[in-house]
């Protein structure tokens, strides 16, 4: 069964450093998402991406965050200057058509900011 692949599975970074989280969505999917889950809390929407542009973003997704689809397969989330409160599990998801099929989530990247 096709999977959404996220790398790395765990990343530790120093406060103020830039990090790039990588995702390879399922190949025929057109809709892409990033969510995050702070330890013990709910899964929070960050951003949705369709047709090579951001379709919606949450209040969490401020100027420190950006997303890119640099080629036909990767979908990245960049945090320019990490803060301690950015420590969380970050999930990438993709969908062929969200309402019809729901999302397929990756296994997540655990980001630890020290």
């Amino acid at each position: 069964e096709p999977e959404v692949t996220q790398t790395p599975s765990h990343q530790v970074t120093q406060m103020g450093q830039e990090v790039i989280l990588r995702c390879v969505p399922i190949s025929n999917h057109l809709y892409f998402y990033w969510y995050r889950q702070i330890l013990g809390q709910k899964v929070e929407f960050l951003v949705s991406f369709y047709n090579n542009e951001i379709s919606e973003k949450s209040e969490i997704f401020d100027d420190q965050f950006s997303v890119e689809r640099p080629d036909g397969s990767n979908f990245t989330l960049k945090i320019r200057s990490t803060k301690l409160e950015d420590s969380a599990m970050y999930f990438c998801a993709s969908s062929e058509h969200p309402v019809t099929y729901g999302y397929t989530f990756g296994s997540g990247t655990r980001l630890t900011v020290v």
Partner: protein
Amino acid sequence: AQSVTQPDIHITVSEGASLELRCNYSYGATPYLFWYVQSPGQGLQLLLKYFSGDTLVQGIKGFEAEFKRSQSSFNLRKPSVHWSDAAEYFCAVGLDRDDKIIFGKGTRLHILP
């Protein structure tokens, strides 16, 4: 704005017992409803979804959910749980055809042997 509420943070049931996890949503029109499961250290897996039609939907792993418009609810059920069902369960709601989905805070299910 739409929202989804899972009133139970933790639920404990004995193996073989029946299960019902509660979910309520807030929205005027008919939403698109989902249940996801997250096993420890794993991503979220779609259990089932409701868009329209039959209000009782069947999902994977023996789960089902019933949409009740009058109660704004979409409760998840399983007639007999297995130890492997221990996980966190998230109800989610989406609106327009291409919109994001919003997750509830989750219910952690514990299974007693």
